[in-house]
């Protein structure tokens, strides 16, 4: 779509609360990273800021392009993402026993971050085009074999890395999108029921202790590598010791003295909670909640089904990442490596998140245009 009216008028339609919320989270993220990486040899916070800036530039440029082009790009994007995953499987860089990164020149790329976006786009396209739901009134399980298949390939490849966290989040995002379509409640319950019952029975009846141990180690490799639950314990100590107002920026002993593991990536929220306390932590949770609600708002008000599903997927992306990450850091959920969007250090993750925000802004910008 060409630009309709004036740029000025378009700016009125921009989802400003979403945009401002993003900027606040990004700023706090960089500031917090500066504390978490105070003793690191390189200026991680600066690198992170550069990625964010690149992300914002990408957003601004992409705002001029209608998001519906993504329907056309869905398949090429999906196939490219799978290609990158395949590349990781064969030529990936091995770090801590897992192949997750592709070395491109001096930069490293984590394809699984972009795969999530590709899956969101291709599922949005499928639900937009598929008529079965409308024809039947609602989806049965068998009607959904195509989206499940589309999901299964990348998830399988991610599991192979292995990166259980990303695989889980990808599945969660896809399931959220599926549940938003008109799926028969009975079939949903059957789906959930068989999954839960199957794993419980397998766990209790068919697995030997050593196999369970393998599963546990697979689920949670870091924790078992360094003595049971060391990461989880230290993280909870960091969060708890923040009390009401925290120890102050750069003053968190768990963070600064390296008792926190992975403090600039997966456990970045522990750093924030230790140094800024309950008040800071609640503020950040509120910001993420606001981001997700804003994304849902975009979804509800999108001009077409494709925009709705896209926004929904991105809302799910932010929600699951934030919830699983903060839940794991506070000991509510088991430790699985999932980054906190726009807070955890990592170029691929930041870029993917910024693209997601860009899509949301794009959808909301064009909500009144027919």
């Amino acid at each position, binding site marked *: 779509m060409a630009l309709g009216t004036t740029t000025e008028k378009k700016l009125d339609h921009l989802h400003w609360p979403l945009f401002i919320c993003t900027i606040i989270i990004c700023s706090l993220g960089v500031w917090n990273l500066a504390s978490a990486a105070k003793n690191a040899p390189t200026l991680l916070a600066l690198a992170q800021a550069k990625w964010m800036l690149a992300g914002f530039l990408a957003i601004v440029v992409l705002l001029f392009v209608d998001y519906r082009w993504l329907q056309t790009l869905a398949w090429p994007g999906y196939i490219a993402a799978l290609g990158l995953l395949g590349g990781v499987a064969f030529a990936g860089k091995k770090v801590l026993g897992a192949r997750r990164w592709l070395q491109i020149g001096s930069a490293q790329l984590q394809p699984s971050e972009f795969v999530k976006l590709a899956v969101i786009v291709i599922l949005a396209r499928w639900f937009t085009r598929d008529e079965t739901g409308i024809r039947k009134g609602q989806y049965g399980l068998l009607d959904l074999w195509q989206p499940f298949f589309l999901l299964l390939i990348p998830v399988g490849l991610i599991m192979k890395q292995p990166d259980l966290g990303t695989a889980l989040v990808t599945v969660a995002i896809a399931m*959220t999108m599926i549940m938003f379509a008109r799926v028969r409640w009975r079939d949903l319950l059957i789906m959930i029921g068989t999954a839960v019952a199957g794993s419980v029975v397998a766990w209790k009846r068919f697995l030997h202790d050593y196999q369970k141990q393998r599963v546990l180690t697979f689920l949670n490799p870091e924790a078992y590598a360094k*003595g049971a639950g060391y990461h989880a314990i230290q993280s909870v100590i960091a969060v708890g010791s923040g009390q009401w107002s925290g120890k102050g920026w750069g003053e968190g002993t768990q963070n600064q003295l390296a008792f926190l593991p992975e403090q600039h990536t997966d456990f970045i929220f522990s750093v924030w909670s230790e140094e800024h306390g309950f008040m800071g932590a609640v503020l950040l*949770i509120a910001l993420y909640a606001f981001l997700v609600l804003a994304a849902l708002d975009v979804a509800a008000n999108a001009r*077409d089904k494709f925009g709705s599903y896209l926004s929904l997927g991105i809302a799910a992306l932010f929600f699951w990442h934030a919830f699983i990450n903060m839940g794991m850091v506070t000991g509510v959920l088991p430790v699985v490596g999932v980054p906190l969007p726009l807070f955890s250090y990592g170029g691929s993750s930041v870029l993917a998140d910024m693209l997601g925000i860009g899509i949301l802004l794009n959808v909301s910008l064009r909500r009144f245009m027919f």
Partner: protein
Amino acid sequence: MLVRRDADDIREIRPRAALGALICVCAMLVLVVRLYQLQILRGEDYVSQSIANFRKSLFVPADRGQIRDRNGRTLVDNRPSFDVFMTPAFCKGRERDEVVAKLKDYLHLEKEDVDRILGDYQKSWTSKDKLERFRPFLVELDIPRDQVDVLEAHKTEMSCVNLIPTPHRSYRAPPSLGHVLGYMSEVTPDEMDDHPEYRRGQTIGRRGLERRWEKELRGEDGKQNIAVDAKGRELDKDTQEALIPESERLIPAMPGNNLVLSIDERLQEAADAAFPGRAGAVVVMEAKTGFILAMVSRPSFDPNKMSGRITKAELRELNEDPLKPMLNRVMNENYHPGSTFKVVTSLAGLANDKLTPASTITCTGGYTLGSHRWRCDKPAGHGSLDLKHALQYSCDAFYYALGDRLGLDAISEMAHRLGYGQPTGLDLGREIPGVIPDSDSVIRAFGAYTKGHAINASIGQGEINVTPLQQAVAYAAIANGGNVWKPQIVQRIESPDGKVLQEFKPEPDLANGHNGKLDLPPQDLEAVRKGLVAVVNEPGGTAYRSRNPDIMFAGKTGTAQVVALGGKQNLKTESQTYMSRDHAWFASFAPADNPEIVVVVLNEHGGWGAEAAAPAASKVISAYFQLKKQPVGAEAVTASTVH
């Protein structure tokens, strides 16, 4: 291309988006509740856990008090040394294995040491106390200088290992004082339960003065709190100051108090040198105060060895030695006193009017009662004897007759009055009471009391058993005119800066039933003393050969039979096997006319008292008076100011 969304779709998506928003808010609220629980409800707890993470307490050991002799010579002090400790929390998993392997290499550890270290390491992690893993445990005590250098050089590779400078006990006194001084060894878990001020790997006094005065000597340990990072590395000064409040950075140690003994180290050495036997005891005590000047119990042990790294084999050897080196013979073993006990029978006779200093009894070479004949040492008989000559020749028949007249209870009563049959009260740990039978105890043990018991007791045989220390107390009372003193070995306790905290005065032995007095007329004691003077100084006296040309002393020989009375009396001592030989006694005081010291010598299985004990006593007495003439000043001052 353009797909208008249908009304159905809108109807569908809006409530579902609202539901999604609700779920999102609920999920986030769960997190908020969890944060409230962690940060607000349990915040304090996690704050202390986070402090425990970086805070490492190094303890600053207190200097243990010194022990000096009466002239200020240092008997025990501390020398600088290094102990190796390890903090489990700072080396986990593979790092632990690497560190242990390095320690094994650098410290030349045996497999059993490595097993012990790994065991202690494991215990720290499995302890219910979550902070236990942050407490350093002892890896190796008192390592040699070259190993200290090696560990210092590899310090950075082993951040969980600490070298703690710990003063170790240095026993400079001759090993013959081992029983008096005691030694140090690691506290047991039970002791730590009772005394939480002790930490794992610390030592506590065992036996002797080290044990008795543990509280005074120990002092109070200090503490140094430092901040470390997750790898156990010490942080820079600014961070230290920011994390550890100034008041908690260093709590200085309080050194322990010093003990000043009544022991004269030079006399102790002289007594040890003079004592000829393989086993036995020498006690030298001030006659007029009860303060002990020298105390030898042979064989002894080396407190340095016992306090240091004694091997299991060495310890086994000590424990299995038939001569029992760990036994303090001065106060924890009793012996028949033999003829040295005749002073008791004599005093009982005088006090009960069965005897006057002038009355005589005729010795015909033995004493017959009913069908039994008790033989005297001189088969031909001593003829008619008064008290003085009976003691001088040590005539048994005289005392058999006297004992027969007195009965056992009169002898027993006098023995208790002199301090026998009950602990003397020397404040040096466990002390045995000895055995002084009376008619009741004899009836209990044998069913009936016969005069034979009194006759055996009259010459210190039968059931009578005494310790060398009791002998010293009894002879001191006879020598000093009737004061039964409680023996003491500590003169005063001083603070580290030399202030006198507690001064010990002579104390009467209140346990003797007469408030520490003999309550005997002076002429009775005089009569016994005359006999004891004759023993040494008149021809025919049993210790005449040990008389001292420079100083006139008095004493009594004793030969305590180990095998049953009567049988092998005429055998030469050399022909008897060691363990069945008689014990040789000599109990003496000097000078005879104004006694200053009491010297008791017991030579276990030494044979005749006159041959195997009296000469040693004579040498000790000579040494005492020689040392008295020598100034103690110069030598003593250098000895105590070197450190």
